[in-house]
């Protein structure tokens, strides 16, 4: 699949979702795996737009590219917002608090990590590179 290159704005996220649904279908992922992958990419891309670009007062692109081998579908998401390694975000405080006082942070990253078979983060030449991997042979 050709790479998808979009402005780093909230309006771009729907197109990324559509792209992921399409590449997941081409790779023959099951419904649950496809949903998990889409959610993972959506959550990280949303963070890049909202926290990376908007809150930092910057702008830039989101680039998504999918590659498929015999046993794996790999999706790479790149943005040029400030370095952000989601692996360092603490897990959400899920069951330790009553719902009324429960903090809502960290949920997106948690969902992203849960949704994929493997995840990798690199910061290379000023670019955040998020790599999501799904096994095709379940």
């Amino acid at each position, binding site marked *: 699949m050709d790479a998808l290159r979009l402005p780093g704005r*909230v*309006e771009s*996220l*729907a197109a990324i*979702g559509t792209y992921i649904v399409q590449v997941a279908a081409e790779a023959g992922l099951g*419904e*649950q795996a496809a*949903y998990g992958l*889409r*959610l993972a990419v*959506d*959550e990280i891309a*949303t963070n890049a*737009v*909202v926290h990376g670009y908007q809150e930092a007062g910057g702008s830039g692109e989101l680039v998504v590219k999918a590659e498929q081998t015999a046993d794996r579908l790999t999706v790479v998401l790149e943005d040029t917002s400030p370095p952000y390694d989601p692996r360092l975000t603490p897990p*959400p405080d*899920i*069951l330790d608090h009553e*719902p*009324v006082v*429960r903090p*809502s942070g960290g*949920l*997106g990253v*948690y*969902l992203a990590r*849960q949704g994929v078979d493997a995840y990798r983060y690199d910061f290379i030449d000023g670019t955040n590179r998020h790599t999501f991997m799904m096994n095709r042979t379940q």
Partner: protein
Amino acid sequence: MKVEIEEKAGITVVRLAGEMNSGTVDIVQEKLLDLVEPGCRIALEMSGVTYISSVGLRTLLLLYREISQQDGYIVLCGLTEMVYDTMFITGFLEFFETYETCGEGQFVLAQK
């Protein structure tokens, strides 16, 4: 995202359909929070919700808090498998009551 609101014998039935994500959630959140009043009873029918991300979950959490503070009740009905799973692994089902059908949800609310 589609939001249909119907009052039925003191219970507010809200039917949501579509994707609950960063692009759609703001308007949904506004409509849902508008419904909250002291002692309200809300059945959120979600069988048409095909996708929910963390921003959607946050909206539900906010709604839950507002309703609890005003001594109201909310139940979720008809969750699809993927939405159910997402809510399960994030711990949301620890405090949201869920029912398979909207009829069951309304029946339970009518007893409150």
